[in-house]
């Protein structure tokens, strides 16, 4: 079970800031998130990046229990 962190509009759409979700790779975990959090979250996901431990990650990247996956919608700091 990887740890998924959600921020900004992704957090709001999911209604939760973090979750433990199953999956062997990034794509599996993201698919589990879509199934759990629904279409509003899915829309935000389309314009978001996925980071693993702070870096961009491809859907096929393998993950383990110690990895932190984050949904990063377009940023608006500054």
């Amino acid at each position: 079970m990887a740890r998924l962190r959600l921020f900004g509009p992704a957090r709001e759409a999911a209604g939760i800031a973090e979750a433990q979700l199953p999956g062997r790779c990034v794509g599996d975990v993201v698919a589990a998130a879509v199934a759990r959090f629904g279409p509003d979250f899915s829309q935000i996901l389309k314009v978001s990046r996925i980071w693993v431990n702070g870096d961009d990650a491809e859907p096929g990247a393998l993950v383990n229990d110690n990895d932190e996956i984050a949904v990063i919608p377009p940023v608006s700091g500054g």
Partner: protein
Amino acid sequence: MTLPPLAPPQTGDWIGVSDHALPVDEAWKWASLPHCGGLVTFCGLVRDHSEHRPGVTSLEYEAYIEQVVPRLSEVATQARAHWGELGRLVLLHRVGMLRVGDVAVVVTASTPHRDESFEAAKFCIDTLKHTVPIWKHETWEGGSDWSTCAHDASSFDAGDAPVARPARSS
């Protein structure tokens, strides 16, 4: 969320994120060095309007807090790679609830000559807005929602290099 107040480091760049008021005066005083004749401070303030949203009263900044300093540090590394004469560099961002006029971000750069301090400070603010995981939620007279002025969270790949430096005139 409770974050410690910001204090300048013993060595290196002053990089931080806080939910306290940002120490603007302390930042520029810390950044002044005997060999640096140019010092630029940029402050990003909460404005009373945004696109199609008049009457903004407050902003709430949410952050992937553990990744803010690492990303700001990458901005500093990039700046130092391009402006080798940089003296001191300050990159601070505030999070939490802010009112109109509050300082949300501070960039201070000191260099021997003025052109480089302007260029480095502009590079830092422009780059951090595209790379640091922070999200702005606006409250205005018509409602509240996430900022529409958002950027794909780019990484530091080719293409993020600063614009070519103009020749110094003096």
